């Protein structure tokens, strides 16, 4: 919590929003509170759990449930304890609390945990069978860990039960729906839909001067949108250092979040997908389904990491230590021409300083499906496979945060009720359109015709620029509906495999090892992890999670 406060204070001074006197006064306040922080940290956390983030009335989700009376209160006297990461994703849970309590007679206790502590807390609870939490928001990569441990309740039987608020599993686009299910059963209730899309500055790409200069430099027209990563590298080379930043300062070709231990491996997954996945190899990316041999040293992976390292040189050096917020802020402040990241950025781009945000790129942010390649390495055939059109692969990289019900829940049905309530169409539409709560669109009613049954007006009402919203919804519909999808790993130990990849990627990006050595080292760690977990058990989980015969 202290980090953004101090960051923002300093940036406010630098950008002239704060006078030196105000800065000193506020900094002194932070200085005085810092020592106290250590002593009162726990108390502060406890207080924070009772303070929901306020939701402006004009973007509040509509009420769906009817208040109950007497015997009509289904879960009177029960308490639902809901564990959630202390991120914006918790906003709807606080927002729905009063409505849920009035409709069921149950009480909703919300427990906030740091993002990285949510799964450990949940896992500790279920592994010991304590049942302290009835429901929890989880990232999709945790599902294998939790289902294989037999810790979750499958919700299929409740989906059509009219005691609960009704939501349709079919309304979830196929790629996201797959993440909610494991081995043929549904465990997650629809909530957030994550996938990385490609964002770039519409104003720069349509500027005739830039178009002419780019053609002179690259020898072909500035592609709008870019459809291959080759083009992206050329465009990044062109824009890097050009004075398109605020007040004419030099901008960067691209920005990425490459800090270790955060989300950098997702960049590699999205980026490398079309180098490995293609029409003749829709699924083999991580391991061989015969013996769990890692596949990440394939020529396709190697080519991808070399390209990504090259691309990383066309942005600020500081991004090697950036998490999401730093990279997003950089793009929002108009200092980067391109990036590829999650749906949150599209929504944040609409949050101008007048609306309390930081974006200087509202109305200039175009979103498209992530670019592809003109050939990929087909692991099945062991050969390069050229394609006539760009080989573009959809992805669901990220968390796609969604609630699950613990097998040890003391009030499982009441817990499902609150989750189902948030999944109803009127609420889910509102969450996705307003964007600031971190719930990204992924259901048919989030997308305007002809893709879905939604409408752009909902986004415009929530503060979006109309063109930005059209591009954004179209990009995400294409990303999640693409028949070719990046294979999302969900077996036990997924995070450990990913972190090994993440760490060695960082070594390659910062010149500590060659890209090839980095992938070899990651593959070697993959083998160690598989051995430790038990190769047969991992192979079995891998096959079942992907539906391999």
């Amino acid at each position, binding site marked *: 919590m202290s980090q953004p406060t101090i960051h923002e204070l300093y940036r406010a001074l630098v950008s002239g929003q704060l006078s030196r006197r105000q800065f000193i006064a506020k900094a002194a306040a932070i200085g005085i509170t810092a020592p106290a922080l250590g002593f009162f940290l726990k108390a502060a956390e406890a207080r924070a759990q009772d303070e929901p983030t306020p939701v402006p009335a004009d973007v509040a989700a509509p009420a769906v449930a009817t208040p109950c009376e007497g015997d009509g209160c289904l879960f009177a006297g029960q308490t639902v304890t809901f564990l959630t990461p202390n991120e914006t994703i918790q906003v709807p849970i606080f927002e729905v609390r009063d409505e849920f309590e009035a409709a069921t007679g149950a009480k909703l206790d919300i427990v906030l945990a740091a993002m990285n502590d949510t799964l450990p807390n949940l896992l500790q609870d279920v592994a010991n069978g304590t049942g302290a939490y009835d429901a929890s928001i989880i990232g999709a990569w945790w599902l294998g860990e939790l289902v294989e441990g037999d810790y979750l309740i499958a919700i299929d039987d409740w989906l059509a039960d009219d005691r609960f608020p009704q939501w349709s599993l079919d309304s979830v686009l196929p790629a996201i729906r797959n993440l909610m299910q494991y081995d043929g059963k549904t465990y997650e209730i629809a909530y957030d839909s994550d996938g990385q899309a490609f964002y770039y500055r519409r104003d720069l790409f349509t500027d005739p001067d830039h178009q002419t200069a780019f053609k002179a430099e690259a020898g072909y027209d500035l592609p709008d949108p870019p459809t291959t990563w080759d083009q992206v590298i050329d465009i990044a080379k062109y824009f890097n250092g050009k004075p398109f930043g605020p007040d004419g300062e030099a901008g960067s070709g691209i920005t990425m979040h490459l800090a270790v231990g955060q989300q950098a491996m997702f960049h590699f997954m999205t980026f490398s997908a079309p180098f490995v996945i293609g029409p003749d190899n829709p699924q083999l990316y991580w391991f061989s389904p015969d013996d769990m041999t890692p596949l990440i040293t394939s020529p396709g992976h190697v080519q991808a990491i070399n390209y990504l390292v090259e691309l990383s040189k066309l942005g600020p050096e500081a991004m090697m*230590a950036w998490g999401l917020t730093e990279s997003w802020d950089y793009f929002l402040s108009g200092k980067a021409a391109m990036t590829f990241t999650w749906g949150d950025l599209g929504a944040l781009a609409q949050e101008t300083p007048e609306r309390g945000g930081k974006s200087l790129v509202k109305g200039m942010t175009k979103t498209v499906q992530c670019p592809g390649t003109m050939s990929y390495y087909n692991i099945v055939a062991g050969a390069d496979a050229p394609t006539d059109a760009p080989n573009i692969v959809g992805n669901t990289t990220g968390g796609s945060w969604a609630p699950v019900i613990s097998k040890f829940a003391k009030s499982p049905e009441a817990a499902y009720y609150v989750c189902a309530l948030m999944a109803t169409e009127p609420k889910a539409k509102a969450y996705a359109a307003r964007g600031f709560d971190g719930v990204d669109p992924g259901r048919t009613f989030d997308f305007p015709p002809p893709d879905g049954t939604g409408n752009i007006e909902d986004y415009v009402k929530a503060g979006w620029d109309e063109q930005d919203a059209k591009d954004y919804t179209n990009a995400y519909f294409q990303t999640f509906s693409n028949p070719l999808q990046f294979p999302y790993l969900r077996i036990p130990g997924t995070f450990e495999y990913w972190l090994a990849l993440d760490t060695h990627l960082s070594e390659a990006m910062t010149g500590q090892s060659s890209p090839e050595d980095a992938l070899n080292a990651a593959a070697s760690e993959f083998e160690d992890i598989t051995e*430790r977990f038990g190769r047969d058990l991992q192979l079995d989980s891998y096959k079942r999670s992907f539906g391999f015969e």
Partner: protein
Amino acid sequence: MSETTAPDSIGSTLGAPNTARASRKRDRTRWYFIGPAIIWILLFTLFPLLYAIRTSFYAFRSGKMLRWVGFDNYRNLWEDEALRSDLQRTIVYVTVVVVVEMVLGFLLALLFNRQMRGVSSLRTIMVLPLFASPIALGYLGKTIFYEIDGPVNRAIEALGGNGIPWLSDPTWAFVAIMIVDIWQWTPFVFLVSLAGLQALPQDITEAAEVDGASALQRLFSITLPLMAPILWLILLLRTIDAFKVVDIVISMTLGGPGRATELYGFYVFRTARRFFNYGSAAAQGYLLLVIVMILVSLLWGRIRNLYEHDVEAR
């Protein structure tokens, strides 16, 4: 005889049980005082230690004990290259931060061990970082070392230099986390050294001064030898603590770029809390315990020698 034996017999019949009862009561009373400490040690020291030993013999999957693996987790310690490099990095880290903190803290204590205007306020300000949560200082460090428009880089650029890639460059990131550690813990050395300096007998120093000893001679021949037991103790405490550092790494770098700032404590933390591999984490914890115990034994032996030498000298 009867007059003299009667009391004895009374004593033997009445006094003995009284004595025994009193002795039993004394025994019980003793347990009331010692009991809580014993329970504390059993519950919070011995039990976790024993439980960790048991844990270290198991493999885990999805948070559950999967199977007995004997000494595999310990064997893996020697085969784990990442762990070995983290241990080497940690030794460098501990050596640098502890030496710098000791030197800097002691010099500051010497500086503030005099009557100056506002000295008590300055002393209070000096020790403030000590009371901040390490995680908060880590985040503060991340802000200070922020590469684009961060305070440190802006200052360097204002002086005509180029900004330093504090967190994105492997070497500088390692320097950055060491600076934050030094920032937080130098005040500890300062505080304890200052207390030690103020307790030193002044007459010896004054006598030396009268005899014409220079300030440096007084420092090396009187102050430092007298302060040696305290300084060794500080060294011991700081060394133990520096080996366990986790918070600064979590808040500043998460071990990156690559593994450039991955320290042993962080490695153990991550094995347990992020990978749920409690068996390996327990074995890693025991390895750290052994390393620290060896160091403590060496340092403690040195301290004891100093004290014994001191006592013998008297």
